[in-house]
């Protein structure tokens, strides 16, 4: 139950935050250029991502035996998780600007306003490429995180359920436009995702290397607690140290 819930929450948070960033880019391109081109670029990226899932997913799962697969997944989740956690610690300590999709939206809008629009009826390639690239890069991370979490003890179900919840929530945010983007505590949410992904990374790596975790799936809780304590100590230490540039 612990693994199921943590996988679901972790997938929902990670996917939601990535989709939010992709949404910010598409909204920025669509509102400054033409919605048709922004959506075409995004749709092209979604098709490429679907191909990636259809081609690579079954190949990986069918050919690799379970233990090496868990090592690979553990390493991938550790790479993602520790990076999110590192950035999260720096943001919470005030050493890095807070994660802000609304700010990204405004910056992207500003950048797009400088590019001249093509004549009516002609394709707007800069808009398509920027929207497509944004969705593709964030989407690859979504695919990797869901695939990695789905290789866990409870299978793909909780990871896909979490991703589904994230898609619905992000679309709802997109429908009421960009206002709620400014209100989300993104830095704290990303820090929490870092804790969850890193916990799964350590857990899977251990399982792949024949470790027997005390309390089985419950180990995820004390691994997460250890990561939380150490990262919070880092936040407090860094926040106290004076910054001299």
């Amino acid at each position, binding site marked *: 139950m612990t693994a199921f819930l943590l996988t679901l929450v972790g997938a929902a948070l990670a996917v939601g935050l990535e989709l939010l960033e992709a949404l910010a880019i598409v909204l920025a391109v669509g509102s400054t250029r033409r919605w048709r081109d922004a959506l075409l670029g995004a749709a092209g990226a979604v098709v490429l991502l679907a191909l990636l899932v259809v081609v690579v997913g079954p190949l990986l799962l069918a050919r690799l035996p379970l233990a090496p697969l868990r*090592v690979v997944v553990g*390493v991938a989740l*550790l*790479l993602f998780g*520790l*990076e999110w*956690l*590192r*950035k999260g*610690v*720096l943001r919470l*300590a005030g*050493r890095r600007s807070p994660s802000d999709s609304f700010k990204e939206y405004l910056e992207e809008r500003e950048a797009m306003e400088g590019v001249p629009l093509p004549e009516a009826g002609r394709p707007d390639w800069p808009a398509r490429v920027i929207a497509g*690239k944004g969705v593709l*890069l964030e989407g*690859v*991370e979504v695919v*990797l995180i869901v695939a990695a979490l789905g290789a866990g003890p409870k299978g793909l179900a909780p990871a896909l359920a979490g991703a589904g919840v994230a898609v619905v929530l992000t679309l709802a945010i997109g429908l009421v436009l960009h206002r709620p983007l400014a209100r989300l505590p993104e830095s704290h949410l990303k820090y929490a995702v870092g804790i969850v992904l*890193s916990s799964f*990374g*350590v*857990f899977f*790596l*251990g399982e792949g*290397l*024949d*470790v*027997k*975790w*005390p309390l089985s799936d419950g*180990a995820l809780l004390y*691994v997460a607690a*250890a*990561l939380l304590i*150490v*990262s919070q100590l*880092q936040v407090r*230490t*860094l926040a106290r*140290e*004076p*910054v*001299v540039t």
Partner: protein
Amino acid sequence: MRALRKLILGETWSLPAGVLVVLLAGLALRETAHGWWVDAGGFILLVLALVVLSAALAPAHKRR
């Protein structure tokens, strides 16, 4: 390519290098430490991951 590298490996080299060290240490200990690895290996991996995180944050401590 730079965006893809940043996406997979992150913004620093210390984290991927540290995770590689954790993996190699885990593989080596599993082969050499018979008996206790199964019960204590998880805690060793956890401590190593915490060390990697702290090492990746070390440059921020120096910047003062």
